[in-house]
């Protein structure tokens, strides 16, 4: 009889909505092997084409069946330098698992969970001292210097591949902690920060130099890096870090946050810990606007820091929600309430400037728009008011102006995103870019794919120059 897809053990919803511990607990060895046995080892594996970095999926799964977890990890690392992270945050249902042949008639192989298992298994053995870490390495003397700007998944991946190729790599990060969205955005209960730290530490042992508190565009311009600091090439992976707001009245009332601010206060600045110095407004009734991963993270975080009721308010319907399926499912289990087809029109506050309520209107779905999704249209006279004391706006981001303003010869498109060719080459010689600053907000694995391609371009361009 066919083995069913193995469920992942999880913290029960009523427990986890009060803590920041990771929600899914991970496969045990036995569960992982059972799940791995489901894979048909396809000769032409469709799953691999669905993965933006083409992880050798059947090969690593076969190693799991053989209990060679170490070997499995080596195969994954051949194309993906951050497997513990991707296994947790990739939207597998629209990538690798979507194309798995088993998905046609039932449940796909749980590729992401297996990837996570392999990475965790080896890391945990390392931490317990059961396995010797690889000896630290340093780039060969005289290796060309490459600067990476931004330490999100795009920058880290580009750095990893350049280190592998023997380059001398320095990574500049504006914040005091490297990791990009992985540390300031995605919460602890979904991606424990110790894992991000361990993955970055592994790169440092391989010779990566990290300079934190380095706001490029101000401390050094891109031209400074190339001309004064002696870098042969620069990769820009600065993300799409500037939050959009709704542009409605009352948006600057106290208690209205961008998701970035709310999540940064909690994740980067640890406002959820009792002795944290960074304050956060802990609303009793919280409304989150938007329905992507960021919105789910904000809603579930609001619950965990003490909200009694949390609403996701979305102007389209359930089917259009862009978040990962698992996040929506987890949010619902934890008691987040969903209000579909509602659009905020104004926030109202008291005389001291504190948010008190939001006015929304109801929407219905009309004709499909450019993106193929049915466009929400307002229903006249459907306005209603709801009392809330915290609003979190998670309706997307735009490009950060810092580098664009100080690098006039860098071509950007009408939204300020950097224009590149397929390999990440920008309009400026020796300058490459990838990740959200090129595509607009996308996914961790797509940013990693861009970082990889740029690393390849840098290597071939620098070698070409001899």
């Amino acid at each position, binding site marked *: 009889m066919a083995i069913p897809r193995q469920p992942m053990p999880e913290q029960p919803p009523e427990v986890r909505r009060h803590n920041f511990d990771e929600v899914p607990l991970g496969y045990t060895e036995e569960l992982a092997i059972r799940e791995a046995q489901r894979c048909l080892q396809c000769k032409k594996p469709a799953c691999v084409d669905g993965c933006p970095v083409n992880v050798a999926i059947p090969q690593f799964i076969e190693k799991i069946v053989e209990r060679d977890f170490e070997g499995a990890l080596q195969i994954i690392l051949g194309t993906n330098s951050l497997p513990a992270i991707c296994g947790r945050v990739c939207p597998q249902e629209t990538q690798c698992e979507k194309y798995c042949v088993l998905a046609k008639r039932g449940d796909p192989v749980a590729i992401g969970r297996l990837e996570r298992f392999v990475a965790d298994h080896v890391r945990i053995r390392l931490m317990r001292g059961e396995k010797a870490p690889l000896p630290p390495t340093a780039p060969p003397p005289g290796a060309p210097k490459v600067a990476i700007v931004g330490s999100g998944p795009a920058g880290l991946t580009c750095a990893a591949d350049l280190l592998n190729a023997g380059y001398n790599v320095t990574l500049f990060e*504006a*914040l*005091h902690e490297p990791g990009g969205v992985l540390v*300031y955005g995605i919460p602890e209960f979904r991606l424990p920060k110790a894992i991000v730290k361990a993955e970055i530490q592994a790169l440092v042992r391989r010779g990566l130099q990290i*300079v*934190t*508190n*380095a*706001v490029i565009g*101000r*401390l*050094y311009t891109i031209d400074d890096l190339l001309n004064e600091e002696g870098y042969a090439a620069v990769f820009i992976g600065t993300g799409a*870090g*500037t*939050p959009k*707001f709704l*542009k409605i009245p009352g*948006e*600057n009332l*106290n*208690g209205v*946050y*961008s998701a*970035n*601010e709310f999540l*940064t*206060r909690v994740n980067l*600045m*640890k406002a959820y810990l009792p*002795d*944290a*110095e*960074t*304050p956060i*407004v*802990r*609303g*009793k*009734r919280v409304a989150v606007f938007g329905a992507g991963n960021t919105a789910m993270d904000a809603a579930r975080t609001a619950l965990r820091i003490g909200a009694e*009721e949390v*609403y996701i308010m979305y102007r389209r319907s359930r089917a259009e929600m862009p978040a990962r399926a698992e996040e929506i499912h987890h949010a619902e289990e934890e008691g987040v309430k969903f209000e579909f087809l509602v659009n905020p029109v104004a926030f109202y506050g008291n005389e*001291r*400037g*504190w948010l*008190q309520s939001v006015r929304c209107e109801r929407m219905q779905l009309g004709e499909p728009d450019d993106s193929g999704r049915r466009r929400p249209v307002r229903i006249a006279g459907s306005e*209603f*008011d*709801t*009392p809330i*004391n915290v609003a979190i706006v998670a309706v997307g981001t735009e490009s*950060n*102006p*810092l580098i664009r303003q100080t690098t006039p010869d860098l071509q950007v498109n009408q939204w300020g995103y950097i224009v590149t060719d397929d390999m990440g080459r920008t309009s400026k010689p020796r300058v490459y870019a990838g990740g959200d600053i090129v595509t607009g907000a996308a996914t961790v694995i797509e940013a990693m794919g861009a970082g990889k391609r740029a690393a390849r371009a840098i290597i071939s361009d620098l070698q070409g120059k001899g």
Partner: protein
Amino acid sequence: MPNKILEKEYLAENVVSMWIEARQIAKKRQPGQFLILRPGERSERIPLTIADVRAKEGAVRLIVQVVGKTTRDLAALEAGEYVRDVAGPLGHPTPIKHYGTVACVGGGIGVAPLLPIARAMKEAGNYVVSIIGARTKGLLILEEDMRAISDELLITTDDGSYVRHGLVTDVLRERLTGKPGIDFAVAIGPVPMMKAVANLTREAGIATIASLNTIMIDGTGMCGGCRVTVGGRVKYTCVDGPEFDAHEVDFDELQRRLNMYRDHELHQLEACKIGLAVR
């Protein structure tokens, strides 16, 4: 890499001046820019203006008023100790050029960020009229530094304990009719002061910039927490400012947002009373 504190002295009760090692920042910084620092491993990130630089030594000067936990922790550090994180220089530099006669108006700790701007205005060939004030004599800072770079230095104290009794705006109002006439003004200080200066110079038709002291977190344009309304449009103080056209700033909103975490506990109590039913 932590940054070493080279020198430290008190300028007034609760106002400390520090020289901190920050070579590249010292090299790049222009008047009007600030940095974001964290005194210790667990601290908040706070913005502080770069009050001065010694480029050769690679040092920047900060002048800090102790108002809360983070500024207290910073002021408690001694020369030889280290500040955990220092990022900068941030913000747009002040548009320094030859305007003619420039009024530099500073209140309280605002005199610290004003000093480098006033100095640069002087160096650009302007006639500089500085008007600085404090609540009381003991809180007045940088009098001698300001005198050295000003063509006129006018001083007020709210309680009349030193020089002129009154507010900086009282003196500014009189000076507006004096000679040489004022062509441009810079206002830095408490929000009510900047608002009052803006009202005076708006009537007089004198272009004025104010440097805003919003609450900030990242300082890189990533969080939107520093947003202000200028001319009806939302701006991020850290990347679009910190200086804006003072005649266009919504100072009342700025003041309410600055009170956000002071008000916080009170608000928590209030929040419990809000009704529970949705719609």
